[in-house]
């Protein structure tokens, strides 16, 4: 019972069973991937794979594998030709004839489509029939070798080709190709079991141009020239069992750098960048040392490779023994700002090598463990490398991010448990996407998921201590490395998979502590805690009466019960109190240690043992309290809104040594624009010992306070004298010193202060002239000649400062913006921007930071009405061929323009780019920016919101983005932002009734997958008896094989080949097979071309006819497609309904309910209502549907 085994296996896991049961009726032990031809000109790849598979059940007759995009020429099992079906329901999620436009419907259909091919449920796009000759062989559970010839032509996802259009050979042009994708996306470039839980050993071979290098996983065994000496073959062996999803490839004319500290580590970069590569990777060995030391475990692979490539999908992608980075992370020794960022990327990827690549996961719901551990050890590295302040600041930042996201969207669930697939059990019903699969997740959700995972790991560490935590990791790693060396016992390999229960068990074994409540709170449940705190001091009792309220009713929140630490700083010292937060207790009395006695001159002891003198005149004479902090260690995922007096915040800012506390007090002081706050902030700014990030945020807070105090403000503009004192010449205070960025703290402050100052406003709400002149002078006198570091980031921030100083133009009668009425200040600003932007063309800065800032500034000027609003400039900078940072900045401006000017044309331009831009990152980013800054939202009237746009976006997410999970999810996000979950309001009313109907029906439509699963199940059930029946199945196939000489070289013929096989497959009519048919026939048979694949000719039963048609119909346009809807509609509707009928009680109910519907629908529903399940199987053929053309009933093939 191959497929029915799936559910029990999952159930077991949930109950805490440690063992891993494969969802597949076979075990993969070894896979060969051989790519023997890569054509950069045509962007195509030809190769084969060979999977070595051991059946685990006797009657295995069908093998499901994952494959997308690939054109499969032939499949052989143990050298016998095998028939196969290619069926990918994710190509087109909802069928083209469907008039459905609500997102609920789509999300369910999409989740169902993804499940239908989910390898973790034992499914796959490619279904291979085991030839009958091998059945006996299979029954003895003997080895099967599945050999698949495939090719890829112009892949849109999975493999990314970068081919610059210059003169010269491909190597000279710097053309390269690399694998990429989100989560398990290996199926995009070769057929495999694309699951993180199916491990096997690998042999990888790549034949490339002699001037190129192929970098892949495992050890490079040898490199051999081909006969003609023009190409060479790279042979890789990966003996550590690895999931297909962790297999990667990068081919290009790379420059090779062997790490001088670790010779087994090799770095690769594109031509001419070697000096940068040397500098960038010179630090990597320290990261290695760190991880190996804390994990007390050697790096698991025998080698490590880093490849830096252009047009990267993500900045960092970790695969088994190799990581692929964006080339934009490379930098020279002169660059300050990028250095820590790049090092963080390197450290991140290395952490994932241990947890994520070497140790893989059992199922998607265990993903949080891997992301959590790798994020957590990365955090430890941060702490060691950048110091505790930076680490705590980062934790605070991450905490704020996750809290903001959860409160906005309603919760991130780390360990989703799915029971039975019923709608009510959906743990994430507040979301507009399913969290059942990684591929249906919004990218933003996924990043937040990772963020929460590592924060929760930190909470576990707080509970069981770091020592135990590292012991647990070490245990997982040593178990895995023992398992990985078991070459001949593949069942042991499941030790390399981590599961939530296994992880928790290790924790309890190692630490002896019960962390179940913690897990229940943060892992099994979504939401964060929201505290409101206030206090009163009872002088008589000398008691602090603390009131802590919780909001656990808003979306994204949960109730917290348990301990909560409160730190009270009193005159006599700092005291920690642990409160027990319980159901109904809001008030907590905390006894104070000190009486108010501020006349005695005595130093005040702080938390860290330091004793300081304070000026206590500001405090309340009756109270000994200096400040109070709730949950200072961030041991709850929470948001705290605490009320205390302004002087308490000021004391906290000045004297509390924790950077998080300082940050919090800065935030709170924004609400207290008083001279005392001003003084406290200025003091912090001046304090050299203070953490630079705190000082930076103090700048912005000071600017806000100054603006609130504008009428009473005395003295020069805020920060001006401070800046002058710190960075200007003593003899001439208006001139800045020549740049010297040796002290990075001062550098960051010097960069930030002018940006904050530019936010100052005078009583007329204009930027003070003095400030503008000051910034212009900074630019004018900027001199970097003697500096060891580049000042490009500094100059870019000066332009940002100029942009910040811009205020809305005073417009008289909406006059047209021309040069003549240009504000003189703006003229000066524009002068600078022009000069900077032009100089960038001659002397470009690192990563074109200055151009980026200039473009942003120009958009600010446009938006404020100083310069005519015009997207033309940005559009030219957004073109392919500009550096990616410039493009993003320009696109951001276009997105903003689209919103402000409600421009349909620009929106179309952006949508076009989403579909056609060569760089995936840019496409994702546009969708993301449109979602963040939408041209309109669901409750807004907008001329842009019309039916055509709905259709366009629908098509985009339905079929236009099938090559990239992340892009599709991005499109879903945008659709949600624009139209919400239900039917877009701009659609014509008449269909409203239908909407309601279908909306309710979603629960029924959900398991689209069922026909297939059921087919499988039934077939499995019938299996023993189906063998004899299927004997006849093979014969026509083999005979026709002899007769038909099929040319494997052309695209069209290969499709014909597939459809040919399909005909063969479907010919014999066994009960199991006919059940199977509707699902397979309705979906695309053409592997690659997503649009139009569903519509095959209306009538023609003969496949030879079809072959002829396919030759021309390959690139069938959507328009053309529209010509067949009538024919194709009934079938697919039927299919859905037949699936739906499995949940018949639900279903029937609906059909009674909605009798007043459009005729067509009514007809359909009636129809299905009439038939019982048996008749349903025959039903498709009563329609002259395209798919039925291939059915067994076709006259020509029926005997």
């Amino acid at each position, binding site marked *: 019972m191959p497929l029915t085994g799936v559910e029990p296996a999952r159930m077991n896991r949930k109950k805490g069973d440690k063992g891993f049961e494969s969802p597949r009726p076979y075990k993969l032990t*070894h896979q060969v991937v051989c790519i023997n031809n890569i054509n950069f000109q045509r962007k195509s790849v030809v190769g084969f794979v060979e999977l070595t598979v*051991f059946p*685990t059940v006797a009657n295995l007759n069908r093998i499901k594998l994952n494959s997308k995009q690939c054109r499969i020429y032939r499949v052989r099992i143990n050298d016998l030709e095998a028939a196969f079906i290619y069926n990918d329901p994710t190509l087109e999620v909802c069928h083209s004839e469907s008039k459905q436009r609500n997102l609920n419907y789509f999300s369910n259909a999409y989740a169902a489509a993804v499940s239908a091919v989910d390898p973790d449920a034992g499914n796959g796009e490619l279904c291979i029939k085991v030839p009958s000759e091998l059945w006996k062989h299979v029954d003895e559970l003997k080895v099967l070798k599945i050999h698949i010839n495939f090719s890829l032509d112009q892949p849109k996802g999975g493999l990314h080709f970068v081919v610059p259009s210059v003169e010269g050979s491909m190597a000279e042009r710097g053309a390269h190709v690399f694998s990429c994708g989100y989560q398990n996306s290996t199926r995009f470039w070769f057929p495999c079991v694309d699951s993180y839980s199916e491990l096997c050993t690998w042999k990888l071979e790549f034949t490339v141009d002699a001037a190129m290098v192929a970098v892949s996983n495992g050890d490079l065994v040898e490199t051999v020239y081909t006969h003609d000496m023009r190409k060479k073959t790279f042979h890789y062996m990966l003996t550590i069992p690895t999931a297909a999803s962790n297999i990667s490839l990068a081919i290009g004319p790379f420059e090779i750098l062997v790490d001088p500290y670790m010779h087994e580590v090799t770095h690769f970069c594109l031509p001419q960048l070697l000096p940068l590569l040397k500098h960038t990777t*010179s630090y990597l060995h320290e990261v290695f040392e760190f991880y190996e030391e804390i994990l007390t475990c050697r790096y698991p692979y025998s080698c490590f490779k880093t490849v830096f490539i252009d047009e990267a999908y993500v900045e960092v992608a970790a695969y088994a023994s190799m990581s692929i980075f964006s080339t934009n992370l490379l930098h020279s020794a*002169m660059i300050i700002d990028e250095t820590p960022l790049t090092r963080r990327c390197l450290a991140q990827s290395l952490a994932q090598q241990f947890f994520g690549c070497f140790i893989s996961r059992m199922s998607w719901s265990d993903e949080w463990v891997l992301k959590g551990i790798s994020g957590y050890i990365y955090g430890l590295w941060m702490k060691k490398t950048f110091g505790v302040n930076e680490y705590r600041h980062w934790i605070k930042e991450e905490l704020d991010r996750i809290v903001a996201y959860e409160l906005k969207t309603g919760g991130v669930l780390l360990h989703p448990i799915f029971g039975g697939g019923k709608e009510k059990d959906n743990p994430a019903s507040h979301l507009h996407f399913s969290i059942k699969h990684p591929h249906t997740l919004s990218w933003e959700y996924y990043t937040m998921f990772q963020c929460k995972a590592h924060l929760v790991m930190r909470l576990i560490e707080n509970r069981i201590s770091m020592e135990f935590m590292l012991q647990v990791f070490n245990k997982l790693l040593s178990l895995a490395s023992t398992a990985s060396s078991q070459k001949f016992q593949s*069942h042991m390999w499941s030790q390399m998979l981590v599961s939530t229960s296994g992880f928790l068990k290790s924790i309890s074994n190692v630490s002896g502590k019960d962390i179940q409540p913690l897990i229940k709170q943060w892992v099994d449940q979504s939401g964060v805690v929201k505290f409101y705190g206030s206090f009163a001091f009872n002088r008589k009792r000398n008691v602090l009466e603390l009131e802590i309220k919780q909001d656990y009713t808003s979306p994204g929140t949960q109730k917290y019960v348990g301990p909560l630490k409160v730190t009270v700083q009193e005159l006599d010292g700092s005291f920690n109190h642990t409160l027990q937060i319980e159901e109904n207790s809001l008030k907590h009395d905390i006894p104070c240690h000190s009486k108010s006695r501020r006349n005695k001159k005595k130093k005040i002891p702080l938390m860290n043992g330091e004793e300081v003198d304070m000026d206590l005149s500001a405090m309340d004479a009756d109270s000994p309290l200096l400040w109070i902090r709730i949950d200072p260690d961030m041991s709850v995922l929470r948001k705290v809104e605490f009320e205390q007096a302004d002087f308490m915040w000021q004391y906290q800012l000045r004297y509390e040594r924790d950077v998080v506390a300082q940050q919090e007090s800065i935030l709170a002081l924004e609400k207290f624009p008083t001279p005392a706050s001003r003084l406290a902030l200025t003091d912090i700014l001046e304090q050299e010992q203070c953490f630079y990030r705190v000082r930076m945020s103090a700048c912005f807070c000071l600017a806000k306070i100054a603006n609130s105090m504008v009428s009473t403000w005395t003295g020069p503009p805020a920060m001006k004298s401070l800046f002058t004192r710190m960075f200007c010449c003593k003899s001439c205070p208006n001139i800045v010193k020549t740049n010297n960025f040796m002290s990075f703290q001062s550098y960051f402050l010097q960069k930030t202060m002018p940006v904050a100052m530019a936010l100052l406003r005078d009583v007329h709400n204009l930027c003070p002239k003095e400030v503008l002149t000051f910034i212009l002078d900074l630019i004018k006198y900027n*001199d970097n000649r003697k500096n060891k570091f*580049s000042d490009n980031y500094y100059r870019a921030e000066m332009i940002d400062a100029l942009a910040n100083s811009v205020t809305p133009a005073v417009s008289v009668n909406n006059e047209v913006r021309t040069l003549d009425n240009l504000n003189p200040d703006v003229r000066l600003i524009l002068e600078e921007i022009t000069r900077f932007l*032009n100089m960038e063309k001659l002397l470009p800065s690192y990563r074109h930071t200055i151009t980026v800032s200039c473009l942003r500034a120009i958009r600010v000027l446009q938006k404020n009405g100083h310069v005519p609003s015009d997207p033309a400039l940005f559009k*030219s900078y957004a073109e392919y061929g500009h550096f990616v940072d410039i493009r993003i900045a320009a696109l951001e401006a276009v997105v903003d323009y689209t919103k402000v000017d409600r421009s349909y044309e620009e929106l179309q331009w952006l949508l076009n780019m989403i579909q056609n831009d060569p760089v995936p990152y840019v496409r994702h980013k546009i969708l993301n920016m449109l979602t963040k800054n939408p041209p309109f939202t669901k409750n807004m009237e907008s001329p842009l919101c019309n039916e055509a746009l709905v259709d366009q976006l629908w098509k985009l997410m339905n079929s236009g983005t099938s090559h990239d999970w992340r892009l599709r999810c991005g499109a879903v996000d945008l659709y949600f932002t624009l139209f919400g979950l239900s039917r877009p309001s701009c659609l014509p009313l008449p269909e409203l009734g239908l909407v309601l109907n279908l909306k309710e029906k979603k629960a029924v439509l959900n398991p689209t997958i069922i026909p297939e699963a059921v087919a499988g199940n039934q077939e499995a059930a019938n299996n023993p008896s189906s063998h004899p029946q299927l004997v006849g199945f093979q014969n026509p196939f083999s005979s026709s094989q002899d007769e038909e000489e099929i040319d494997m070289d052309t695209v069209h013929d290969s499709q014909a080949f597939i459809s040919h096989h399909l005909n063969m497959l479907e010919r014999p009519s066994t009960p199991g097979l006919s059940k199977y048919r509707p699902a397979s026939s309705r979906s695309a048979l053409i592997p690659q071309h997503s649009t139009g694949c569903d519509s095959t000719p209306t009538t023609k039963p003969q496949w030879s006819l079809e072959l002829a048609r396919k030759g021309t119909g390959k690139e069938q346009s959507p328009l053309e497609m529209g010509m067949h809807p009538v024919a194709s509609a009934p079938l697919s509707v039927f299919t859905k309904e037949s699936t739906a009928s499995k949940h018949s009680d639900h279903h029937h109910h609906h059909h009674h309910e909605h009798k007043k519907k459009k005729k067509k629908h009514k007809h359909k529903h009636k129809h299905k209502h009439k038939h019982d399940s048996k008749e349903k199987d025959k039903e498709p053929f009563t329609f002259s549907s395209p798919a039925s053309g291939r059915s067994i009933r076709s006259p020509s093939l029926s005997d």
Partner: protein
Amino acid sequence: MADAAATAGAGGSGTRSGSKQSTNPADNYHLARRRTLQVVVSSLLTEAGFESAEKASVETLTEMLQSYISEIGRSAKSYCEHTARTQPTLSDIVVTLVEMGFNVDTLPAYAKRSQRMVITAPPVTNQPVTPKALTAGQNRPHPPHIPSHFPEFPDPHTYIKTPTYREPVSDYQVLREKAASQRRDVERALTRFMAKTGETQSLFKDDVSTFPLIAARPFTIPYLTALLPSELEMQQMEETDSSEQDEQTDTENLALHISMEDSGAEKENTSVLQQNPSLSGSRNGEENIIDNPYLRPVKKPKIRRKKRILKKVLNSANINFPCPGASVGAAGPG
């Protein structure tokens, strides 16, 4: 008759120069010398057995002779000055000739050769008088400690200074101001020029000249310009690398910088972003032979390679297959 021709030529030129004589005595002096040289050349030619010579050849030879003699004179003068004398001596001439590669020993024999011709001494002409330079003021007499044979002081205008009582432009502020505006002007001019000569974009539709933006042009390989430091920056980096950064014009910077380095915070930060780790380590590493598969030579294809490799693949695959029995035992339904 070479002699006659030569003399005739010489005479011809003599008469011509004679006509100029009245106009320029200096010319006359030089011409007379040259005529003598011509005679010498002619006689040497005759001596060597030539009967006639073209005028051009004679002129060339004369020129050569003149150069040679001039060089002897110049060189001899140098030697004599080198030994702090004003008049060349015979030994100066000899050293000069040796230096010029002439075998001095052969000279006496050559002078005494039998067939030598003796020519008449050149007519005595007056040494041209150097025109008196305009004198301004009285030359200073030598101070008592300088012997009188030393050259006289030059004209006073060459050494007398007229002090102007204005501060030189060494003010830091002005210098910075100047440097800044100069750079700005250069940049402005350059970008305007570039904008004028190439395609531009404009922020204002009605006016394309006030704020001309050089049009954005896509690159074929955009990351190269974005990531690689420009030559200017590289140069700067080298300069600042060798010379300490502290040598700044503004001395205050120096003081501040040192004080910053003293603070512990600064140290912490530099350790965070430590620049190049010790170079010596990496050099030591390179000295060892690195065994990295990517550095190994590419193998030549074997004959019938394809089949073998396929076999190898299959073999290796076979070897690596885990035992099927074991896997069934554990993961199977039983």
